[in-house]
């Protein structure tokens, strides 16, 4: 029952936000729901419930290994959102608050979905609910980004539906009764019709890969992340991509049970390395620091699927990386939002010297940049190290070398942009003309807390989390 509350509480909060009369107090619903959700998620993390094997939704080990990270990220974004919406009083926030809360509920459902159809419905609903958030700013650029998001995202979602149908047909053709829970599909194993399984894998990987933002299906990402408010960018990069990643993992476990695991891992490895490569090329070229975060997200999605392709050890590292990526990316997005507002622009041609205008945000931004480029002692360093170790242990030395090369060039790309923004003298006539802007605690503490957790994950990964990741790996690689 507790696990269903994770879904019901945010959705009820969304309904309440629609009915709430006051524009000024409505944003407080977000942190209120966030606190309840985080408390529930952490409680479930430490004392996991029994999962009924045939249930359509359940807090199984995969949900336990991933969902609390999304919950913490949402809480930070919600706290930031209260201060943010107070600055943006010129725009009505009813739809914004309701959509953000609904997304949290749907993400909780998507992470817990143990049924192929339910998984698709919840991820589709997340995609649609994000639409009003993307054009919150109401500019023509925001509309353009929304249009591309809908067209590319809609096509991706359509293809994942086609893939789900193919997997369903593989089950029916193999004598299945039409039970599309992942447990039933995995139990069918080798009876699943092999050609249909392979077709299903291609469509599902392309479909959910579009949602994750794997190259070459990443084209919506820079526009959406660049134009959306920072909290939305943080939730998309840390929460929505995560649900798509767990979808890929659940599907992969069925493909693995059907005896095509080696082919699936090979495609994951290839698409992951390709994503990293594409991301790095764009990171070296872009001049916009919000779009930079999008390409960095593409790179990290690549790292996640590479980890998932490398057997149990790599999968464990991928779960670790989900946490370190979500929390670090959140801190980066929120601090980048502060800088963007203070400077009134977002390209390196227009923004510089932010360390003297917004010193605290700039400090978090730089620390986040070092964390996300895998500098010790932050979380991403350790998770990426484990991915490399898993690659070498499974004999993928070439892939490991390419992985490290991409990380190095990503470091060049990110440092080039971040220091161009932070260093130097502020431009005259821009923003506050070099005067220091008072940074409110409401927009500084949330990213600071996220950075703190990222650091804590790196220095002393809690045992409960390690156990949760191990359990999730056992669920994905069941002992024969």
């Amino acid at each position: 029952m507790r696990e269903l509350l994770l879904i019901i509480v945010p959705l009820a909060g969304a309904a309440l936000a629609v009915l709430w009369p006051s524009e000024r107090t409505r944003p407080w619903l977000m942190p209120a729901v966030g606190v309840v959700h985080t408390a529930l998620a952490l409680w479930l993390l430490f004392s996991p419930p029994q999962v009924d094997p045939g249930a359509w939704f359940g807090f199984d080990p995969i949900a336990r290994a991933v969902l609390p990270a999304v919950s913490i990220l949402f809480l930070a974004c919600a706290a930031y959102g209260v201060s943010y919406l107070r600055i943006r009083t010129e725009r009505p926030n009813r739809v914004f608050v309701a959509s953000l809360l609904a997304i949290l509920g749907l993400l909780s459902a998507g992470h817990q979905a143990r049924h192929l159809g339910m998984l698709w419905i919840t991820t589709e609903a997340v995609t649609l609910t994000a639409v009003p958030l993307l054009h919150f700013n109401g500019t023509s650029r925001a509309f353009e980004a929304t249009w591309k998001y809908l067209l590319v995202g809609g096509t991706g979602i359509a293809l994942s539906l086609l893939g789900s149908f193919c997997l369903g047909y593989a089950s029916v053709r193999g004598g299945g009764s039409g039970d599309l829970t992942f447990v039933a599909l995995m139990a069918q194993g080798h009876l699943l019709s092999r050609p249909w399984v392979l077709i299903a894998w291609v469509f599902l990987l392309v479909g959910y890969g579009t949602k994750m933002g794997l190259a070459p299906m990443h084209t919506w990402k820079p526009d959406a992340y660049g134009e959306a408010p920072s909290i939305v960018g943080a939730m998309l990069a840390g929460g929505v991509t995560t649900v798509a990643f767990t979808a890929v993992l659940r599907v992969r476990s069925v493909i693995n049970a059907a005896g095509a695991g080696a082919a699936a891992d090979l495609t994951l490895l290839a698409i992951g390395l390709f994503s990293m490569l594409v991301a790095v090329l764009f990171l070296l070229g872009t001049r916009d620091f919000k779009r930079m975060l999008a390409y960095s997200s593409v790179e990290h999605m690549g790292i996640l699927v590479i980890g998932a392709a490398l057997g149990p050890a790599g999968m464990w590292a991928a779960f670790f990386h989900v946490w370190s990526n979500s929390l670090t990316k959140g801190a980066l997005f929120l601090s980048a939002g502060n800088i963007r507002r203070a400077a009134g622009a977002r390209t390196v041609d227009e923004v510089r010297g932010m360390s003297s205008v917004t010193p605290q945000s700039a400090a978090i931004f730089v620390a986040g940049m070092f964390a996300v480029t895998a500098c010790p002692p932050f979380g991403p360093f350790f998770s990426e190290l484990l991915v490399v170790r898993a690659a070498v242990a499974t004999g993928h030395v070439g892939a490991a070398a390419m992985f490290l090369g991409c990380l190095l060039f990503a470091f060049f790309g990110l440092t080039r942009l971040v220091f161009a923004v932070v260093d130097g003298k502020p431009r005259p006539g821009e923003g506050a003309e070099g005067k220091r802007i008072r940074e409110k605690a409401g927009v500084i503490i949330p990213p600071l807390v996220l950075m703190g957790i990222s650091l804590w994950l790196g220095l002393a990964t809690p045992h409960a989390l390690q156990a949760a990741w191990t359990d999730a790996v056992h669920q994905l690689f069941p002992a024969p």
Partner: protein
Amino acid sequence: MNSTLNLLIGMAMGLNLLALGGSRVPQVIRAVAVQGIVLGVLPLLLEHDFGWLVALVAVITVMVKGFLIPGLLNRAMRAAKIEREIDPFIGFVPSLLLGAGGTIAAVAGARMLPLLPEHAGTLLVPGALASIFTGFILLIGRAKAISQVCGYLILENGIYLFGLLLIRSTPLLVESGILLDLTVGVFVIGIIVDRIQRAFDSLDTRKLTVLRE
């Protein structure tokens, strides 16, 4: 019964080609609308024991795909004063040839896939593959937002056709959930088309080029 089914799916495949070759936007919208109606009645043919839920799903599909969405698109088209697709990325004759080739390939390719005996004699799988392919050609090859939405709708029709393979074995609950979601998705697209035209006074996606490296 299979002959009626194949006749209807054959019609849908013909409408694909009509949508590919049409240079006038209303013609493409009409092709999509008729295709929606034709496909909407298929569940009634496939389901042996006639239940009220199947009938409801069929009625909703026909209403939404055949009337509501085309109506939205027509309104957007009139508001933006676009009658013709001018200078598409892939010309009308090449896209027609591509579509015809794709249809033939779909019929040939479907023979190689392992199907259940009751599906082997139907055009369900070839029709689905051909529509998906047509949808992609329109999505990639047209510049006007309305034509791209039509491509997306044809793509969805193809996937819907494929889903009919499973209508007997999966619970109808999932099927209707899926139907509901498709409706919502397309509805949002309708709203966006409406918004976009107010923002740009035209639905030419070539003008959507501010955001790029």
